[in-house]
């Protein structure tokens, strides 16, 4: 897409959005913030008047030399990525896309990151600043368009992953990075134990690894970096070549693995690096290890409590990706302990006194 084509869709509706939020605040009407509506499955269902972000669209500014792009929340993820790719740059956190309508606002609100996460960082790591619509319908700016900025509290990162429960993300500034010069993906036949051992060993070396997954007897690795180091690492690891699109299928859940059988739910287990396989009654073929083992996708009929107890004991947590399916958990996110819940509630009360922003999306109470 050319610059011209991107800007043809430019539209700043922030004033209208502010008015809508102000009215909702005054009339205490809950809002359901909607971008492309591709992530509604993630989290608890929200009852509320839709606040449509899709029209708030376009790149506000992009200076490739500064490594900074500012974009309106309703901009399609694919449009933003295409604009960056024209300058050989990318969003380093590889946000998942769950359909062509996926927006950047939804990507930041859910705070999800793709296969590059353990090596490059998470969505919030690349958010430099935001314009946020507050409960009173004011458009305020936090953070900025510079790499380093420690003035005031980091509201932008707090908003990332808060799923719209603390305010409306209107515009977002990101740090972007060059697309690596060289890339090579490979697959190696390997048992799970050997794969986890290999990944721990490789992780201690300065190698150009930017993705690592294991499933059904195969270790999958993506190398990205300079031509020389990618070539050298490729030669030392060996294996068979793998199509690069494999990572997109894992990221966006289009891989066959994500066809969940009846009676099963899809879970995401987030665990400390180098965690041994959990002692759960789940066949190996129903587990997909991503993020070098730190993120594990699991298809199971096991109940939430069993899964969460096992994850918690290992220092992690479990999220249900199919809360509405039969066998899914009614609380998709791991419940908070009493102290954390108190401060979450305090924050919610301060920033959303009347509970108008996506009420109940994360937890029933806020």
């Amino acid at each position, binding site marked *: 897409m050319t610059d011209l084509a991107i800007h043809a869709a430019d539209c700043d509706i922030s004033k209208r959005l502010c008015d809508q939020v102000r009215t909702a605040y005054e009339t205490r009407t809950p809002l359901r913030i909607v971008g492309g509506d591709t992530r509604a499955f993630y989290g608890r269902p929200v009852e509320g008047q839709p606040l449509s972000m899709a029209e708030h669209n376009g790149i506000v500014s992009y200076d490739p030399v500064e490594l900074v792009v500012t974009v309106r929340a309703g901009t399609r993820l694919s449009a933003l990525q295409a604009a960056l790719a024209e300058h050989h740059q990318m969003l380093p956190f590889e946000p998942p896309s769950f359909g062509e309508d996926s927006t950047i606002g939804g990507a930041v609100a859910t705070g999800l990151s793709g296969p590059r996460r353990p090596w490059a960082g998470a969505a919030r790591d690349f958010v430099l600043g935001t314009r946020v619509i507050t409960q009173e319908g004011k458009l305020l700016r936090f953070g900025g368009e*510079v*790499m380093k900025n420690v003035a005031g509290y980091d509201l932008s990162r707090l908003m990332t992953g808060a799923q719209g429960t603390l305010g409306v993300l209107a515009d977002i500034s990101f740090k972007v990075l060059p697309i690596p010069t060289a890339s090579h993906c490979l697959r190696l036949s390997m048992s799970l134990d050997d794969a986890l051992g290999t990944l721990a060993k490789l992780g201690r070396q300065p190698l150009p690894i930017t993705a690592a997954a294991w499933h059904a007897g195969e270790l999958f690795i993506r190398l990205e970096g300079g031509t020389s180091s990618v070539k050298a690492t490729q030669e030392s690891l060996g294996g068979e070549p793998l199509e690069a699109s494999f990572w997109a299928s894992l990221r966006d859940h289009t891989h066959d693995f994500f066809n969940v059988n009846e009676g099963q739910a899809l879970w995401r287990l987030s665990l400390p690096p180098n965690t041994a396989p959990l002692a759960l009654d789940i066949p190996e073929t129903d587990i997909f290890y991503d993020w070098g083992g730190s993120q594990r996708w699991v298809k199971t009929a096991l109940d939430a409590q069993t899964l969460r107890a096992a994850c918690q004991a290992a220092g992690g947590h479990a999220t249900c990706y199919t809360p509405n399916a039969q066998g899914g958990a009614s609380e998709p996110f791991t419940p908070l302990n009493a102290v954390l819940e108190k401060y979450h509630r305090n924050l919610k009360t301060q920033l959303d006194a009347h509970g108008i922003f996506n009420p109940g999306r994360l937890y029933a109470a806020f």
Partner: protein
Amino acid sequence: MNILFDERLDGELARRDKAEVLTDIQQAVPTLTLLHREEDLRPFECDGLAAYRVLPMLVALPENLEQVEALLKRCHALDVPVVTRGAGTGLSGGALPLEQGVLLVMSRFNKILSVDPDARLARVQPGVRNLAISEAAAPYGLYYAPDPSSQIACSIGGNVAENAGGVHCLKYGLTVHNVLRVDVLTIEGEHMTLGAESLDAPGFDLLALMNGSEGMLGVVTEITVNLLPKPETAKVLMASFDDVEKAGRAVGDIIAAGIIPGGLEMMDKLAIKAAEDFVKAGYPLDAEAILLCELDGVEADVDDDCETVRRVLEKAGATQIQQARDEAERAKFWAGRKNAFPAVGRMSPDYYCMDGTIPRRELPRVLKGIAALSEQSGLAVANVFHAGDGNMHPLILFDANKEGELALAEDVGGKILELCVAAGGSITGEHGVGREKINQMCSQFQADEISVFHALKAAFDPKRLLNPGKNIPTLARCAEFGAMHVHNNELPHPELPRF
């Protein structure tokens, strides 16, 4: 301008009798080391911003969590403010004590609890020195990436409080990018874990909020940091320029070539001279500016990148390009930059270090503005610049013994920060707001934004007992300071009294 706590502008503090507070805390926490005599309090009267000194009411030196918890509970009950301090190296007065407050010194929490090389994590107490983490990780070929210039002395708890940076931020991020989990105690003495050893945690990202919150939201008691494999090699190029603007443009050209250097630093003529006189780093004294560009990673890639950068620098008009031949020369090149502050300190009785950030493209304009301010005020300014990430450290030279020079230096400093804000930047990239830049916050943020910060604070500390007067100004202070944003020609909060 006096930046000491002013109840008229910063809010009232409870008046408590020192002897009563001392007795109360001693009885509640008999094992806690509490300093109360003037001569014992004196060493704690300031942090790295030594121009400002206040004797705290009491200094607490706890050794275990139970003591911190009990102390906080008593302070909360008595409405006594608590200022938390690590190594005291902060440059923005973030740990400046309060006369009516307890200074909570965490320096005895100095243990590295564990290093897990396979998970690439280290669990440490807040008083552990930044560099000590990398030293503990070194046997496994790992290190902790953020490296503030004070890394020999500064503690990781303070790094979290300030979201400290260093010379490698563009590639490796700030503290917030390298910390996985912190354990905190709230002002009410509750234990709370933010983040996790896994790469995310349920709920709001309170870990990100805690980083850089300057001790205003909680007391950090333990930190889990991410460790990285040490780059196989690091090579540094030094380029000289006969014009500062050319050097500034060369920085952009390097990035435009698709290269993210491990470090990319710029120094102007005055800073070059100071550093060269001090450490004999081999800097060219006839240059108007030098760039230090460090490339790190796998040997073969680094060699390729060195070639690319060399070509870019030549094209950008560098008058001389030198690549450090070996590790010793690389260390020498960096020694000049890392010692730039003390080097400038030798040239002048006092100096005042600023910390503004700007989009890199604004560098020529901002440098011109700084030069004009320097000329107007008669105070020399040396410029040291984390060029890769747009973080400027202008050093304003002055003599505090000369009547009015400190005030003049502060005035020039404040104007430099306003230049940065006007250029689309920030008043602080890594040193924090603390007490030092409390007034300039009013230039960077509107009243409504500042009100949101106060709302966040109220969620954690409604009684405003944690580090009051730092980081976020009151609206009354902004009104008095007079630099508040005038929005749509209306002064915000007309109901507030103007002093």
